[in-house]
């Protein structure tokens, strides 16, 4: 049975209302505003409705309403004001303070019963609906979480496939696919440093994740270079070298053809890296001779990572430099001009680069 709290300083009034309602509800009484607040504070959720007298000595009915509103009890427990004053002002003030309805003195038994029943039922219904909505929200939230998980998995699969694609290409001209892994690692170190040191780049963790994943594809265009050039041990002729350089344009064209496989933003990052990772900051790189910040940031980052890895690795046409040598060659501009800001990041993270290079060479024993 629902509980009703009757708040009135006059016992006769409390008793009369109690007699009118006791068949249908469990009744509690409070002989003043303070007593009512104490009861509600302890266990307002037990009550289906409060019947509240306005004019009481000490804490009056308006104050009780104010407290109930402030504490948000009134959202759960409706208040019917018992009013002896038949003025509109009193009525409006009570309604402003959140009262649901009015019962005027002298009491009319059937009016009291019906008003109370209406309000109690209405709030009861609302409570049930709230609970239902809450449950549905929970279910929606669970589904959202599941979708998020699935979308993350798809993303991871995508990146894995991209990595495999890059690795397949690498296998043609290198003894292993480790180059891809190292370039990813160097790219990540540089990009994180750039995000930290240069907020003007506006890099986000999500963008970095994309750049790192897309770096696997920087040399995908090499798939189109014939073995006679790609695997030639000696020095390339000018024509051969020009053909070799076309791996950037051929790679980016290849990516354009399959760009429907991933979302646009990621496709753009892949394209930029693939086409522009041999551009130089002074405009003397290829294929487009872009200069300075015309070169997409993603390609600028990957180009340092790629150059550094090429230096510390053994290639068919050269032996490996030490990390110290490689560091100085990049900084001094021996391998072409890079962005001063990114070189600053490179300097700051020298230790991390060297640790990663050392770790990788351990895994690659010389034969």
């Amino acid at each position, binding site marked *: 049975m629902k509980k009703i709290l009757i708040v009135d*300083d*006059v*016992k*006769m*009034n409390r*008793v*009369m209302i109690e*007699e009118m309602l006791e068949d249908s509800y469990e009744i509690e009484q409070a002989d003043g505003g303070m007593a009512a607040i104490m009861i509600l504070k302890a266990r307002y959720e037990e009550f289906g409705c409060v019947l509240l007298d306005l*004019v009481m*000595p000490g804490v009056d009915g308006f104050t009780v309403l104010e407290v109930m509103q402030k504490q948000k009890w009134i959202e759960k427990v409706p208040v019917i004001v018992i009013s*002896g004053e038949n003025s509109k002002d009193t009525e409006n003030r009570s309604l402003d303070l959140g009262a649901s309805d009015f019962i005027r*003195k*002298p*009491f*009319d*038994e*059937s009016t009291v019963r019906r008003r109370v029943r209406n309000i109690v039922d209405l709030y009861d219904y609302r409570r049930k609906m709230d609970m239902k909505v809450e449950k549905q929200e929970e279910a929606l939230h669970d589904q959202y979480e599941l979708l998020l998980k699935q979308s993350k998995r798809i993303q991871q699969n995508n990146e894995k496939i991209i990595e495999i694609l890059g690795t397949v290409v690498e296998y043609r001209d290198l003894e292993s696919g480790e180059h891809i892994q190292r370039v990813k690692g160097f790219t990540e170190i540089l990009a994180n440093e750039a995000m930290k040191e240069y907020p003007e780049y506006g890099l986000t963790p999500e963008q970095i994740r994309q750049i790192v994943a897309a770096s696997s594809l920087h040399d995908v265009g090499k798939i189109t270079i014939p073995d006679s050039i790609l695997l030639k041990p000696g020095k390339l002729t000018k024509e051969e070298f020009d053909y070799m350089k076309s791996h950037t344009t051929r790679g980016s064209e290849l990516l354009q053809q399959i760009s429907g496989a991933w979302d646009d933003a990621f496709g753009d990052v892949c394209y930029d890296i693939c086409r522009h990772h041999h551009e130089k900051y002074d405009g003397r790189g290829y294929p487009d001779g872009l200069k300075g910040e015309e070169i997409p940031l993603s390609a600028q980052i990957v180009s340092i990572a790629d150059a550094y890895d090429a230096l510390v690795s053994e290639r068919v046409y050269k032996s490996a430099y030490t990390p110290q040598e490689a560091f100085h060659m990049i900084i001094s501009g021996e391998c072409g001009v890079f962005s001063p800001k990114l070189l600053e990041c490179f300097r700051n993270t020298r230790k991390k680069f060297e640790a990663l290079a050392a770790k990788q060479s351990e895994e690659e024993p010389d034969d």
Partner: protein
Amino acid sequence: MTVKECYAQMGADYEEVLGRLGSEALVKRFTLKFLNDRSFSELEQGMQDGDAENAFRGAHTLKGVCSNLGFKALYEVSAALTEKLRGREIAGSEDLYAQVKASYQKHIEAIQQLAQEA
């Protein structure tokens, strides 16, 4: 003595209260409870002590209770007294108080008869 006769003796409006409360039994139960109502004692105490605040409050409560019970005659005089005391000034309210007291005693006598026969 029926409740109706009791109301007639007090100068109260039985038809009105029956319309509001629905049954004779309920009217009777509430009427009998009036014997225990303390609002007149509060008014009396306030008048004796010269405490206008208590006197006003007692009169105001008595007015409300009479309105609920349909005690028309006592309601009218206590309402008049309430207005007189609203300014929290006892002087000048003595006549009205005497009328309230007389009417109150008449009500109590009638209700006591009703109680004895119940």
